[in-house]
């Protein structure tokens, strides 16, 4: 009983710590322009209004930034998963010359600080005429996400018993069918985690986007947000409204993928 109460107290405290700042942002986004710098702690401010949201959506380029971010992040996830799922399978299942070196190399790429890659990637992107394009951004983000995903997925594939694949081979499946009918469905938890991680990385990325995007119509939301700050004033109400709105896709994605983030998917297939 005491244990349960103390666990709940800790969890409630943690929830408050996690949720309160977000609620403050929601609260600020609802404030009328006259009360922006109010020190009131009320969650629903007096004279609450959606004016900031209207301004953001209709008077600013917010929808363009959001769209750009969605395209770039979505494509990074898709390409990342497509390349990583197959490459990781090869690393997990087959012995080939350079396998070990390949894995170590992929790990090394993860050890470089992202800032170090800015310049080389920028130069490459400019030379390849991919400056200010979706393709350039997607390639730049995939450089980081694919190696990470390969390692994550390889680790997961290693835990999928080979007998399942052998059973499928005997049942009449070729290697490719075995991969996408047996291995991939069983790897969904790892695919979901890799996808989610890659999406969040690309979605929130600022530094690379700042270097690679000059044209306003190509801005992703982190760059766009900077434009909400003028030299002398910042529209905190609009800024907060934007913060609330960009959180929504990420939250939806979390909720949607949570059903795949179940452990023990391979349970029951083999005698433990």
């Amino acid at each position: 009983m005491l244990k349960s109460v103390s666990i709940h107290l800790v969890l409630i405290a943690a929830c408050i710590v996690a949720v309160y700042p977000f609620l403050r942002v929601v609260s600020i986004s609802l404030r009328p322009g006259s009360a922006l710098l109010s020190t009131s702690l009320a969650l629903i401010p007096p004279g609450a209004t959606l004016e900031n949201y209207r301004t953001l959506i209709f008077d600013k380029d917010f929808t363009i930034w959001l769209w750009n971010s969605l395209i770039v992040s979505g494509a990074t996830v898709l390409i990342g998963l497509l390349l990583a799922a197959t490459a990781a399978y090869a690393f997990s299942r087959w012995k080939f010359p350079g396998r070990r070196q390949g894995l170590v190399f992929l790990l090394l790429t993860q050890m470089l600080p992202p800032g170090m890659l800015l310049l080389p990637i920028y130069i490459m992107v400019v030379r390849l005429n991919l400056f200010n394009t979706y393709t350039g951004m997607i390639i730049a983000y995939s450089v980081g996400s694919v190696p990470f995903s390969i390692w994550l997925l390889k680790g997961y594939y290693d835990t999928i018993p080979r007998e399942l694949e052998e059973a499928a081979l005997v049942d009449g499946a070729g290697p490719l069918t075995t991969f996408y009918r047996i291995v991939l469905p069983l790897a969904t938890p790892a695919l979901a985690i890799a996808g989610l991680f890659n999406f969040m990385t690309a979605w929130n990325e600022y530094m690379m986007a700042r270097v690679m995007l000059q044209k306003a119509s190509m801005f992703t939301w982190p760059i766009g947000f900077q434009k909400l700050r003028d030299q002398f004033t910042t529209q905190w109400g609009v800024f907060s409204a934007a913060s609330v709105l960009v959180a929504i896709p990420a939250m939806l994605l979390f909720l949607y993928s949570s059903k795949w983030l179940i452990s023990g998917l391979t349970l029951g297939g083999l005698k433990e």
Partner: protein
Amino acid sequence: MARVYLENVTKKFGNVVAVEDATLEIADKEFLILVGPSGCGKSTTLRMVAGLEEITEGNIYIGDTLVNDIPPKDRDIAMVFQNYALYPHMDVYNNMAFGLKLRKFPKAEIDRRVHEAAKILGIESLLKRKPKELSGGQRQRVALGRAIVREPKVFLMDEPLSNLDAKLRVQMRAELAKLHDRLKTTIIYVTHDQTEAMTMGDRIVVQKDGLIQQVGPPMEIYHHPDNAFVAGFIGSPAMNFMDAVLRRDGDDLWVQSDGFKVKLPRTRFETADEYIDKEVIFGIRPEDILDLDFAKDADPDLIVTANVDVTEPMGAEVYVYLSAGKESYIARVDAHTRARPGTTHKVVFNTEKAHLFCKDTEVSIR
């Protein structure tokens, strides 16, 4: 339905020889058992027939087709794995239907076959369940069902019962034998359990260290083992082996050991002359050591007095652990024996059924 023929098949993993020069013909509709201790190459042999392992040397034929380079999916075989290997993300129905779907069978045919197999195995009520919702025995049945629906030329079974509890294993053993009668298909069955080997197969192949030791019907192997390994591996409790010297006394042949000397029937060991006065291995099965109390008219030349170390009552019979001199051995005697630990007891060696093996090569002397 098809015969399977292995011709001088060798499998090496690096420098390790897993299977060496195996030649074996498995007749159409035969139930063949590959048996041996772990690491003897029996599973590797099966996996080569399945196409899951490449063959280093030799040829494998299924029917009249050379299958060396044919992938598993085109060999028309079905395999039951030791740990079931059911697809965890599919329900029982789809586990069983998977192979047929891949082969583009019409839906109605798939449905008919799955339900028929499920009926044979008594798992009709489980078709909608996922593997994790099944007990071990049920999973085993689904794994069998998945093989049955395919109606393959050859069934390959890799220790399918070894993960079941003892009672279920006995039950499934009988069911598999019945299933074989019903399906009339070639079955190659791998086990390390000599009881399964004895009870289920038409023929047994005993393997050790990658080499085939002996091939034959169960009773043939039991009564006429080619060497000491086969003699010791088949039968439970295992055959007693004792170091002994072969002696001739006039026309009679005797075997003399530290704790006993008994007469051998001359007719059983016609080629034994070259071993006279040499060391041999004397082998006798526990059931061929009789309690003198129950063998009243026994030949006095076969009677041995031994110390009783331990008795193990099994219900219908008693295992008596005896020792005499340096040798100790087990006798399997009537439940009413008067042998008690700590006493001496007279037993009779039924040498009509005893075996001799060359001390060096362990090959049977006949």
